[in-house]
């Protein structure tokens, strides 16, 4: 049997053997933990992605065994392949940390910082990145670039103001839909995702753009303002989708029995999980139309990083424990001191926000007047 040739690379003083042709970023991800550089634009399941955001910059202290000279500039680790005997410095290099701080500052220059409104808050890559690598204040005193928000199709809302131009959604439209029909128009400060994207909305897999977007530029319109991400409970679930291309394995974001949102199942790097070597993209039917728990076979609670706010205040049990009082009290139920629904207007039994296929408005709430004290 032919021996598979591997090459040795050292990242932050940790050595690992990888296959030739691996990028520094993927080699670092094999080591895992803090060694892996953050990535805003690179997406392993999208061909050709990467090299845009510059957050994954690393220092190459020695090029290879054959040529041990260091690379003069920091390199984008998602686009640089490893060489045998390469020595890479990521978090051990002050230059890298300083450069990354600068990159975060540039990414946030035009960002509106409207996290209290944004539906992405809590699972936003830019939020995590700026907490980890950014500075607290801004030095930018000029007017920020603004765009008018638009609905691209009934399901997706585009907030161009929040966009960091990572091109991930362009690759989704390019690789998951049949025709290439959109890109980024204009240059520099005026660069914007073109409205051609709305034509790609017809395609069954356009909803995956929402999941690949590292910021809140593309958000699910059926979930818009319904709930904060960290109040919903993520559950792994699957169904037999009629679409042969659709993976059918998803994460449901539940609140009680209500399915507020359906997304692809993500791995520890925030990217779509791969099943049998295929990326687990899901179709729009699974994502937008199956908002009932009975449509799905629930497998269990999604594992959430313990540092994430999404894991806060969640119970791990799948089934509610049985009421014991009635058994002990010869079938008599405990006396209810107050039924919260008789007073509270929140989570009213007659009103399912998840059933409304657009953001809730004042008229929706007027139809269900609040109970009076």
């Amino acid at each position, binding site marked *: 049997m032919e021996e598979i040739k591997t090459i040795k690379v050292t990242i932050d003083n940790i050595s690992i053997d990888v296959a030739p042709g691996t990028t520094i970023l993927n080699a670092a991800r094999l080591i895992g933990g803090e060694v892996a550089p953050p990535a805003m634009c690179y997406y392993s399941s999208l061909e050709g992605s990467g090299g845009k955001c510059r957050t994954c910059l690393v220092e190459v202290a020695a090029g290879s065994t054959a040529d041990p000279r260091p690379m003069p500039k920091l390199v984008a680790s998602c686009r640089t392949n490893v060489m045998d005997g390469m020595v890479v410095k990521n978090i051990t290099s002050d230059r890298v940390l300083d450069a990354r701080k600068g990159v975060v500052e540039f990414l946030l220059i035009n960002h509106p910082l409207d996290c209290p409104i944004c539906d992405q808050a809590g699972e936003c890559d830019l939020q995590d990145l700026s907490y980890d690598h950014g500075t607290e204040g801004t030095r930018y005193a000029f007017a920020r670039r603004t765009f008018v928000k638009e609905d691209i199709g009934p399901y997706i809302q585009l907030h161009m103001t929040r966009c960091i131009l990572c091109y991930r959604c362009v690759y989704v439209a390019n690789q998951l839909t049949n025709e290439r029909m959109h890109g980024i128009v204009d240059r520099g400060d005026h660069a914007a995702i073109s409205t051609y994207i709305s034509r790609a909305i017809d395609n069954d897999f356009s909803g995956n753009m929402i999941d690949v977007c590292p910021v809140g530029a593309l958000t699910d319109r059926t979930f818009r303002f319904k709930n904060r991400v960290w109040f919903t409970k993520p559950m792994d679930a699957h169904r037999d989708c009629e679409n042969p291309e659709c993976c059918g394995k998803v994460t449901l974001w539940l609140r009680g029995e209500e399915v507020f949102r359906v997304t692809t199942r993500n791995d520890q790097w925030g990217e779509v999980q791969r099943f049998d070597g295929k990326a687990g993209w899901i179709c729009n039917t699974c994502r937008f139309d199956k908002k009932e728990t009975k449509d799905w076979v629930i497998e269990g609670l999604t594992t959430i990083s313990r540092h994430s706010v999404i894991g806060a205040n969640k119970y791990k049990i799948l089934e509610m424990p049985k009421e014991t009082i009635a058994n002990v009290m010869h079938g008599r139920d405990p006396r209810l001191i107050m039924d919260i629904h008789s007073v509270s207007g929140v989570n009213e039994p007659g009103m399912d926000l998840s059933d409304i296929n657009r953001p809730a408005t004042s008229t929706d709430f007027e139809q269900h007047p*609040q109970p009076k004290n």
Partner: protein
Amino acid sequence: MQALTNRVKTVSRKPMNFLERLYIPAIIQGMIITFSHIFKKNPTISYPEQTRPFSPVFRGLQILNRDEEGRENCTACGLCAVACPAEAITMEAAERQPGEEHLYREEKYAARYEINMLRCIFCGLCEEACPKDAIYLSETFTPADYQRKKFIYNKQELLIPHPKEDPEAYKKALGNRAKQQDSDTKN
């Protein structure tokens, strides 16, 4: 047994003498202490006519703030609810429609906002968590009531009076701390 502290006093078991058995001197001694308090400063006040000043860090009933034009500050971002250790705060958000700009400051607002005062422990973490200057713990007590349901405060009960429609009540709701801030900025 060895005493744990040096404040321990051993009880005297010796029989009382004649003067002590009379009890009268002891009663007079006690009365002197009692009546001397008539001439001391009164520690109580006649509430509610008189009130004591609150400490600057007093944390009372929550109030939902409005801006100068009377628009609600709250955007239902949920940070108060996730910060709340007692899980007393619940809310539901809605999207602002064209024509509602005078009511809500931003495109998202809290259509329903409730604080369960039976749960609230007045820790003030909601005020600390709020990025929109929308929730404050005021200088008011939560009124007592006989019914539990009176303690579920909805948005209308929590909102500060409108600064333009009802400027007097608005000023009163701002309380002493706001007055202090005014004089601070003037100086």
